[in-house]
């Protein structure tokens, strides 16, 4: 059983389940929209959004809804102990991590397709002047967040208080991702787009992704076995 094939089977299974129930997609999506709306009441003054509010709101909405999606995705594997069935299957265990990570990324991509335009619209933010850079920022940031989040959510499956411990563990570790996402997006929103700055943040995100995916692959097996 090859590594890639095992990861692919896990992704396909998760997509099939989600296509059937759509539970995580719908709840995460509406949660993200609700997040954006709640922020609007804090950052819109006399009908005008505070300048520079949009990047922060966008990335906090991604982080919050991402946490929710991670929690739900692994709750689904916990409910009938299917995670144990995956762990005793004769596959390289890190392949399971890659499969779950890919599933989460697909889901968050769908959420972002909705909330990025929504934030642009509600907060008068010209987010699409440099679409490629924006996509690179979103991809790099979401990958970094989900790479750490998938490992933490997986290992917390057998911990008590897992719902609250996930954000407690995840947010401090992903602070560089949030900073990079927010500042990179803000650089794109300037009247005079600061391309070198956006590129610098994208590079940092790529480095972060590589380091933490390698670390996660390396620690997944010892963290998942009791």
């Amino acid at each position, binding site marked *: *059983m090859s590594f890639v*094939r095992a990861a692919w089977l896990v992704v396909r*299974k998760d997509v099939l389940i989600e296509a059937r129930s759509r539970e995580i997609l719908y709840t995460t999506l509406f949660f993200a929209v609700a997040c954006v709306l709640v922020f609007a009441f804090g950052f819109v003054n006399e009908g005008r959004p505070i300048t520079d509010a949009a990047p922060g709101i966008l990335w906090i909405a991604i982080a919050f809804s991402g946490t929710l999606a991670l929690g739900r995705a692994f709750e689904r594997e916990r409910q*009938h*102990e*299917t995670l144990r069935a995956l762990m*005793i*299957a*004769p596959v*390289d265990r890190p392949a399971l991590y890659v499969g779950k990570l890919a599933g989460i990324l697909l889901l968050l991509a769908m959420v972002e397709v909705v909330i990025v335009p929504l934030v642009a619209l509600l907060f008068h933010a010209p987010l699409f002047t440099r679409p490629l850079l924006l996509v690179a920022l979103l991809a790099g940031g979401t990958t970094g967040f989900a790479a750490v989040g998938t490992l933490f959510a997986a290992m917390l499956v057998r911990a008590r208080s897992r719902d609250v411990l996930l954000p407690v563990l995840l947010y401090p570790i992903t602070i560089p991702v949030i900073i990079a996402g927010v500042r990179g997006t803000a650089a794109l929103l300037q009247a005079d787009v600061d391309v070198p700055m956006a590129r610098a943040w994208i590079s940092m995100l790529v480095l972060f992704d590589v380091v933490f995916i390698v670390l996660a692959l390396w620690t997944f097996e010892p963290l998942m076995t009791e």
Partner: protein
Amino acid sequence: MSLDFHSLALTGVTRTFGRRRALHKVSLRVEAGELVVVLGPNGAGKSTLLAIVSTLLAPTGGDVRYGDYTSAMGAALRARIGLLGHDLYLYPELSPAENLRFFAGLYGIDRVEERISMALDRAGLSDRRDDPVAGFSRGMRQRLALERALLHEPRLVLLDEPFTGLDDAATDALVGRLRQLRASGCLTIVVTHDLDTVDGVADRALLLHRGRLLDVANEGEPLRERYRAALAHAPQPAAGRL
């Protein structure tokens, strides 16, 4: 199959969770073609025992050997172990065929569709092969979960309460299946409370009591009586324990 073994040997296996001792110096040997029943009250450590034998859980002390191998063999060894857990390990959103197909993929099984059809036949679920498992009764899920655990024809079969929710016909079918497993040279460990059902199928019965493995008499009275006698003779905790 590249890896195979014909015996399972636990030597002095201990597992503690903090101050709680789930298993205490458990030693057990099972040979190919042998079916061992593990009995015991709730919380005696039966599930911990199965988790350790299935390599899900590492023992705190002692060692587990699968023929000449240990759990360090990883995936190759896991390919030869089949575990039916108490929580069934099925995705309720998926149909029986999809559940089996997913796990067949992970186990790298060939002739997948043919084997799935046979498994669904045995589980009596051929007519519901494409309905989501969420709508199934406990007994139907139990039958499906058993087929899932045996789909890759494991050498070592571990069954945790396999009779739960089964009607008489299904129970008889399962007993027949257990005989088949025995005849085909599997090493089978069944954890159960259904004493009367397994009486006569099992080669040996063992009692797990407060994390210790005790013998149950092998001959004579019905298993139920022998179990009672063994339980009565089990060491009781010392008075005034901490």
